[in-house]
């Protein structure tokens, strides 16, 4: 809808410009036209600024006694731009500014910033120069930094903890392309109807159809995606790796997600469950102490960890793990994919209704094994007679609306 409006605005502008040309106005941008331009500019900015909400508030002020100078210096140092003669790797080569989509086991600058925001400089310095954990000692071995630099880095990190990271400019390519095609459509229409400059009418026609097709495709795809999030793999507050736990260490899924068999919800393990092991295991093979320390911290401070929820069904869908795991004995991997290979947990299936429904069409019910199905006398008879090869989930009503929507 919005795009439509935008196209219209653009169309208006073009029209006005052509009108202005025809009328031989001295200036291209007549007042009315300027209004349109301003409006469209405003809208455009609005879109862009959506992501790029500038957090200018923190920049202008002096934070926690650190001058802006310090903060900038710290940032440049962290990013390896200062000092020029520094031989070792820069901080940023190991520590991402933000967590990113590919798993970097080392804590991000943001994570460090948050952890050390409330602590003094000495503890910060100690963590770098006299690290406690084995892994950290190994990685940080041989780092010798000027105290001044470290202070600057700390200032930079403190500031980051206060105001948040500088937002990375979002890619608006798709949007731009979409708008570009919108303009193409406008042009093609105008050309076809009014200008008639191009001899081969087929060209604007093709352009028109192709652009419309592209826009339609994008809208369709995005509309479907709107409620979907296949592949969603957000950063979690703790870099928990299912690969290490379920894969390498072979912990059974249901050890942690122990309500999966008899409750609707599989359950996220309570922190005290983590502590069953981590009371002993205090240093991970990948992340050292940093991540595990968060669990301990959470338990000590009675501050539960706020995981980012991956598998979100709409509110009108009621899914029960108990039926699928407890009764149908499905493997977790059927829906959640090769979790034991995922460092960063991601949504494997698209969780669309079609996905559910089609699985119900193909999956056999544990018809003989489960005593509940004695109720289905007819189907048992047919199975015995051989009229029926297998009972699929949909044969016992798994695809009824009110199995999931009520």
């Amino acid at each position: 809808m919005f795009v439509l409006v935008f196209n219209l605005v653009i169309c208006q502008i073009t029209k006005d410009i052509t009108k202005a040309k025809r009328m031989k106005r001295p200036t291209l941008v007549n007042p009315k036209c300027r209004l349109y331009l301003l409006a469209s500019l405003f809208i455009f900015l609005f879109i862009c600024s959506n992501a790029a909400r500038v957090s200018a508030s923190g920049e202008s002020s002096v934070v926690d006694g650190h001058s802006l100078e310090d903060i900038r210096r710290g940032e440049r140092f962290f990013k390896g731009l200062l000092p020029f003669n520094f031989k070792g790797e820069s901080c940023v080569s190991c520590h991402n500014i933000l967590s990113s989509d590919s798993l970097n086991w080392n804590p991000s600058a943001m994570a460090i910033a948050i952890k050390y925001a409330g602590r003094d400089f000495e503890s910060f310095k100690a963590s770098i120069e006299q690290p406690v954990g084995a892994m950290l000692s190994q990685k940080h071995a041989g780092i010798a930094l000027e105290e001044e630099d470290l202070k600057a880095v700390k200032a930079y990190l403190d500031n980051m903890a206060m105001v948040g990271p500088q937002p990375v400019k979002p890619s608006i390519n798709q949007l731009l392309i979409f708008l570009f095609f919108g303009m193409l459509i406008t042009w093609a229409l105008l050309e076809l109807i009014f200008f008639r400059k191009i001899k081969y009418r087929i060209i604007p026609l093709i352009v028109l159809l192709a652009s419309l097709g592209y826009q339609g495709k994008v809208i369709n795809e995005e509309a479907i995606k709107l409620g979907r999030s296949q592949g969603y793999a957000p950063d979690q507050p703790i870099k928990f790796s299912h690969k290490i736990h379920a894969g390498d260490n072979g912990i059974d899924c249901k050890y942690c997600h122990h309500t999966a068999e008899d409750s609707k919800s599989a359950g996220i393990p309570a922190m005290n469950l983590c502590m069953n092991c981590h009371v002993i295991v205090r240093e991970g093979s990948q992340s050292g102490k940093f991540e595990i320390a968060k669990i301990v911290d959470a338990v000590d401070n009675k501050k539960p960890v706020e995981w980012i929820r991956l598998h979100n069904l709409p509110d009108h869908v009621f899914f029960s793990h108990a039926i699928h795991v407890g009764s149908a004995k499905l493997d977790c991997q059927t829906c959640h994919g090769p979790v034991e290979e995922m460092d960063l947990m991601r949504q494997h299936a698209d969780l669309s209704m079609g996905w559910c429904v089609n699985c119900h069409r193909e999956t056999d019910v544990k018809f003989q094994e489960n005593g509940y199905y004695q109720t289905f006398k007819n189907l048992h008879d047919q199975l015995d007679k051989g009229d029926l090869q297998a009972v699929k989930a949909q044969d016992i009503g798994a695809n009824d609306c009110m199995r999931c929507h009520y």
Partner: protein
Amino acid sequence: MYKTSIRGKLIEGDKSLAQISTDILAPIDAKTPKWWYVAMTVSLAMFGWGLYCKYITLSQGIGTWGVNNTVGWGWAIINFVWWIGIGHAGTAFSIFLLILRQKWRTAINRAAEAMTVVAVACAGLFPLLHMGRPWLFFFVFPYPNTRGPLWVNFNSPLFWDFVAISAYLLISASFWYFGMVPDFATIRDTTKSKIKKAVYGFFAFGWVGSSKEWLRFEALSFVLGGIAAVLVVSVHSIVSTDFAVSVEPGWHTTIFPPYFVVGAIFSGFAMVLTLVTLMRKLYKMNDFITDSHVDAVCRILIFISLIMGTAYLTEIFIAWYSGSEYEMFTFFHNRITGEYAFQFWAMFTCNALVPQLFWFKSVRSRLWVVFIISILINIGMWYERFNIVITSLTKNYLPASWAGYSPSIIEIGFFIGTLGMFSAGVLLFFRYIPMIAVSEVKSIAKFNEEIQPNEDH
């Protein structure tokens, strides 16, 4: 061979072909008259009020209407059926009279078709906004989707209705438009204004009147005419199934399809008559829309009115004959004598009795009387829909759930809005589109001459 002689001439005033063009196209070329602006303002005001009501409906919900959990459909559906009925005139005129080879239709069918398109567009708004969640209207399409795919319910009369109405709108619009293409070409070639030349030139699709074009044009008319005839019958039959397929007493009747089709044609013709009398008065189209045209429409209306009366009586008879207490209650206690007796008798009087006045030549020849009766018929037809929709719903099977119904101001506003939209559409039609099919009139001009052989041309 043609019955035109006993009806008077098809075209009055012995016009040359060029004159026909200029006369019919005069309103397009001439300066817009003052009354047009006045009428347009009024129409747009009504339309605007309708828009406001639609906004309220969309932003707050159908709760702003008078409908309730017992009477789920109210004015919106009454008006929908009413408009659809009116929208039947165009196609019915064109098709049936084409099939019956009634040459006199040429003067009227353009107006009728234009009316059809506007009326069907008005009608379409009602079911759309009547939905609880109109933004999800696309659920009605059986399109492949990621829900399984989940299709639609092909048994639902509303689905049929949806297909039928959209088909009808598309087909009648294209039928109307393609009929106009040669006329647009005429305007393009006769107008002085450059803008008009360009605009109408665009809409004329490059028509030049070559035999190649005419040949295919004729074939197209033949095909479209043939299938559209089926459509006219089927669309309102389908609309009637919205009611007939249900279990509500008073709805669940097999007579509905023909009854609705005839009723639709009835109201459509009445509206055509209204428009035609207006055209004659406002645009002095007396030469093309002659007394004999009006006369012919009036005669048809007598006939349809008789059918309507018979249908009403049949319905009542069947209600009694069925022995179903629910049917009997609906017809005898709710419609004829009950709370809604006024609406019933208004319907009966306007539709079955008043048109009988057309038996008198003196009535048929008085334009203002014809005009009033045509309006009365439209009111009567509105009451007919009211009778069907409201009386059945208010008092159906379980008396505990009986409820009354009265429209809210928003609902009324919505209806007024469509009236405004209709009149605005018709006014635009008067102003910008040849209101009589020029080429078709020209083609019958010769028959005019055949009947008057001693006239020079």
